[in-house]
């Protein structure tokens, strides 16, 4: 009984930390500064160009979508 109460207490206490981000709340996530490459997409392209040249491979990085939550 004590362990069950403890489990419930832990779940209730930590449930406040796991709020879903709704699609209409993604303004901050949609900013350029939230992208892996930061505000300069050329930097990422340049790094990828070096990586692909060294590894003789292409693709497989990144995800689709513009951060608007539509994909």
């Amino acid at each position, binding site marked *: 009984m004590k362990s*069950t109460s403890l489990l*419930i207490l832990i*779940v*209730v206490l930590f*449930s406040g930390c796991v*709020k*879903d981000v*709704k*699609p*209409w*709340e*993604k*303004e901050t996530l*949609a*900013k350029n500064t939230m992208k892996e490459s930061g505000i300069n997409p050329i930097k990422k392209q340049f790094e990828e160009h070096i990586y692909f040249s060294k590894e003789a491979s292409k693709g497989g990085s990144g995800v689709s979508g*513009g*951060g*608007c*939550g*539509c*994909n």
Partner: protein
Amino acid sequence: MKHIIMSMLLIGSVYAYEKGDIISDNMAAHIGCNGEKVYVVDFFASWCGSCKKELPLISKANKNIDKSQVEIIGIDVDKNIQKGLAFQESLKADGKLNFRIINDPQNLIISEFAPIGMPTLYYIKNKTVVGVITGAVDDIDEQILQDIKKVK
């Protein structure tokens, strides 16, 4: 114990409007879609790239619809209302926004519709959701005109 865990999982889950759902009287009155027309309700925000792409196309479709039977309504969900208004004005200045807009900075309207992504477009007739398009569509103007013919 099982029931307690299930109840906790269900707390906070949002019910989204889907095809066939009837929207509440209060919401229908609030956004003005409680008439006899077919209403096309589009949710957008200034920070949503796909929405920016779609809005001029939706405005293009708005020029080709029978206003006595169909009305397009935009819901701007920008929390920063000044930013939202500036975005709308920039589009209007370029002739890319020609339908009625409702600002929803508190996100009360979109919270009730609870779409799974943005942009999302709802077709509403007799307070009933008769169609939903979630996500960006390249030729949304043609899609709207086709869908309106189906739901009218």
